[in-house]
């Protein structure tokens, strides 16, 4: 089991944002996380990748307990992520964005920058991988552009590329098609499938049900911070509680 979450709870004051959730992600699979607004999906992501510390519960990644670890440590263990608002280094070119995302896999420190022996090799490696990653997400042509100047879909693709360039075993994608034009959605779905083909597991938060249903191996449904259903798309879509709580109008439409 790649990722295992046991009775994870997060409280903000009196509000319970995530309430005793159990969840598993198998290596190389795609898990969709769905639920209405405020269901605690993003909070769950933030707990998984360390941006928030859980109130109680346990998270293990490849058998290592990562409960309450700092985000950078979790990232180094092999969990990449994107943010809902597509956070990038807006003032820097794409290739630099990629290089920064690869930085955690390099060893060179300050002294290597003065006497660039090891650094030369690593820089070449970083440049090569950054190029590959840009190519993979289809942005190879705009390596020199400034990240902030990109259209929304390209930003989303860049963010996915940055999450991947550090060679993670699992990536968390927070609404990869949010704010993206209808014509660009299929491209993103294709990209997510390609990630899976590389053997990288994917956790994806989405609102577009049809997309999640088609994409995911397993689906977790959240409502008011609790897991109300979990299983294959078919199992979940047949679950009466899910239909009642959330899918009712949305899915049939």
């Amino acid at each position, binding site marked *: 089991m790649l990722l295992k979450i046991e009775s994870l709870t997060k409280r903000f004051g009196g509000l319970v944002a995530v309430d005793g959730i159990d969840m598993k992600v198998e290596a190389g699979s795609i898990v969709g996380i769905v639920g209405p607004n405020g269901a605690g999906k993003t909070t769950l992501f933030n707990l998984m990748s360390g941006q928030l510390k859980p109130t109680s519960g346990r998270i293990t990644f490849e058998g290592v307990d990562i409960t309450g670890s700092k985000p950078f440590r979790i990232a180094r263990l092999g969990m990449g992520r994107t943010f809902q608002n597509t956070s990038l280094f*807006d003032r820097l070119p794409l290739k630099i964005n990629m*290089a920064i995302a690869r930085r955690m896999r390099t060893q060179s420190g300050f002294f290597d920058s003065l006497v660039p022996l090891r650094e030369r090799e690593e820089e070449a490696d970083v440049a090569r991988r950054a190029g590959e990653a840009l190519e993979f997400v289809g942005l190879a042509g705009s390596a020199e552009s400034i990240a902030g100047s990109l259209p929304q879909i390209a930003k989303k693709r860049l963010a996915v590329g940055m999450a991947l360039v550090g060679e993670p075993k699992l990536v968390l994608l927070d609404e990869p098609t949010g704010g993206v034009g209808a014509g660009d959605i299929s491209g993103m779905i294709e990209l997510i499938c390609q990630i899976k083909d590389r053997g990288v597991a994917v956790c994806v938060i989405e609102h577009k049900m049809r997309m999640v249903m088609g994409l995911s191996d397993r689906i977790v449904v959240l409502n008011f911070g609790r897991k109300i259903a979990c299983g294959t798309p078919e199992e979940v879509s047949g679950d009466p509680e899910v239909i009642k709580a959330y899918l009712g109008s949305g899915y049939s439409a």
Partner: protein
Amino acid sequence: MTAENLRKYGVFIAALAVACFLPYIGISKFMLNVIIYAGIFSIATMSLNIIMGYTGQVSLAQGAFYGIGAYGLAILTNKAGLNFWMAMLLACLITAFVGLLIGLLAFRTKGPYFIIVTLCFNFIVYVVIKNWDWLSGGVRGQKITGPELFAGREARYYLVLGFVLLTLFIMWRISRSLEGLGFMAVRDNEPLADALGINITYTKIVAFMISCFLAGLAGCLGALHTGYLSPTSAHYLLSFNFIIYLLVGGAGTLYGPIVGTFTVYLALEFMKGIGEYRFMIFGIILILVVIYFPRGIVGGLKSLWKKVAGSRQAEEGA
């Protein structure tokens, strides 16, 4: 490619050529003296650029670290009887070590809180030096005797030029190294950098230590050139000066610190003729520069160049 390189490095090479022969092109002794000080302060401003320009943490403690370097050198040569160069290296290392300790405390805070914590630290260092006879040397102050070789003004000039170039080299390497990538990541987007596996606290502390080391170096050179130390060498107004130099020159640019330091320092020196009004006029100039050129001289020139180049390309394209 060579044409572009020439354009890129042309100004630098020309400036370097002038710098190499500066003492022999009929420049007055006083000018040379002022330029030596400007060179020393530009090292301190470059040190600030590492932590503020590249890593995005505004430190108001650079004056303290300048002072710690200077007083470290004085104590190590005067009280411990160490060889000058040995003492200088040690003084810089001590400064970096103090930077580590302060960094561990201060980097728990962010933004304006960090600014105030560093300012408080600077204030503390100043008051301690002022009140502690053993450190300040009492009414006599601390005397610094440098090596015989660098007794002459010209020799000092080349010594400082050497260290300015060394610091510039370090800055240049950092700005395009993997370590520098980490700095810029922390500056531009901390949460994202964190999510991408960059250890933020570690990165900040490394940047701070390098910055402190170089500020200490500037302090040592300043002490050597003045030959004497008083508590003003660690005053927080010095920190303000460095920030002014950096912002006028352009934070986060390679040449900004040097351009800013020389512009401001030389302008103030020439304005001495008008006595008490010089700071009034300097104040007005400062306000205008920051309002209308918020990215400093070098930053402003860069964007101007881009605009010109951009419009030229557009013409060619059309």
